[in-house]
C-alpha cells in the first residue's frame, strides 16, 4: 500500500525561505543561466523531473521574450514556492509596451502547454510574464516520475 504525504509537498523548507530573485543581463547567453537556475530552484521544491523540465522551458521562453522585446537593462526573475504551487515571474523595463511587435504566438503556445497558469502584461515601460506550476503530492517512497 502506498501512502500519500498528508502535508504537501515536500517543499516546506523552500517555501519558508521566501522568494528567490535572480537578475540577469539581457543577452542571449543568459537564457541558459536563467534556465539552469530555475532547474535548481525547482528541484528544491521537490518537483518531478517532468515538472522541472517544464519550468526550464517556461523560463527560457520568458527570458527570450523579454530580450526580444528590446530590454536594454537587467531582467529580474523571481521564484516563489508555496505549499501548493511554484511561481516564476520575469520582469524587465522595455522601450515599448507593444508586445505585438514580437512574434509571441509560439512562445505563448509553449507557456500554455508547460504551465498551469500564465500571464503576460505590459505597461508603458515594463513587461511582466508570470507562470504558475501546481505542486503535486509525491507518494511516499516513490521515485520521481518520467514523461512517457
Amino acid at each position, binding site marked *: 500500500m502506498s501512502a500519500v504525504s498528508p502535508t504537501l509537498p515536500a517543499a516546506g523548507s523552500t517555501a519558508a525561505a521566501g522568494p528567490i530573485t535572480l537578475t540577469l543581463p539581457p543577452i*542571449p*547567453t543568459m*537564457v*541558459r543561466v536563467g*534556465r539552469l537556475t530555475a532547474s535548481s530552484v525547482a528541484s528544491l521544491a521537490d518537483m518531478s523531473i517532468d515538472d522541472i*523540465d517544464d519550468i*526550464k*522551458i517556461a523560463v*527560457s*521562453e520568458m*527570458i*527570450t521574450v523579454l*530580450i*526580444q522585446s528590446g530590454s536594454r537593462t537587467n531582467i529580474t526573475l523571481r521564484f516563489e514556492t508555496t505549499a501548493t504551487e511554484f511561481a516564476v515571474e520575469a520582469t524587465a523595463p522595455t522601450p515599448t509596451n507593444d508586445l505585438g511587435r514580437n*512574434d509571441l504566438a*509560439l*512562445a505563448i*503556445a*509553449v507557456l500554455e*502547454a*508547460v504551465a498551469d497558469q500564465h500571464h503576460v502584461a505590459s505597461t508603458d515601460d515594463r513587461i511582466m510574464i508570470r507562470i504558475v506550476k501546481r505542486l503535486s503530492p509525491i507518494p511516499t517512497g516513490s521515485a520521481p516520475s*518520467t*514523461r*512517457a
Partner: protein
Amino acid sequence: MEEVGKNESIRVLLEDKVVIAEGDIDLAGGPLLDAAIARVESTEPLVIDLAAVEFIDSSGLRSLLAASRRAESRGTRVVLRRPSSGVVRLLTITGTTEQFDVEEASPA
C-alpha cells in the same frame, strides 16, 4: 566531420551535408544552427541530426521552421533525424511536427 560553430549553448557540426546539433538550441544557440544550415541548403532534402539536443525552446524551433519554409520554397523538405525527446515534445505541443519529415525518433 567539421565543427562549424560552438558557444556556451550549442556545438554544430557538418558531416556529409548533414547538420548535427549538440546541446541547447535557444536564443544563443539558434544563430549558430542557422549559419550551419545556410551552408548546406540546396534543392536536396536538408537533414538535421538532433539526437544530441538536450534542450530546445521556441526560439530554437523558429530556426527549424525558417529552414523548413526556405526548403519548401526550393521544392524540398527538412528532415529531422533522431530528434531527442525534448525536440519531439516541443514539436508536439506547438503542432509543428507536420512541417518536417522525422526519421528514427530517439526513445523518450
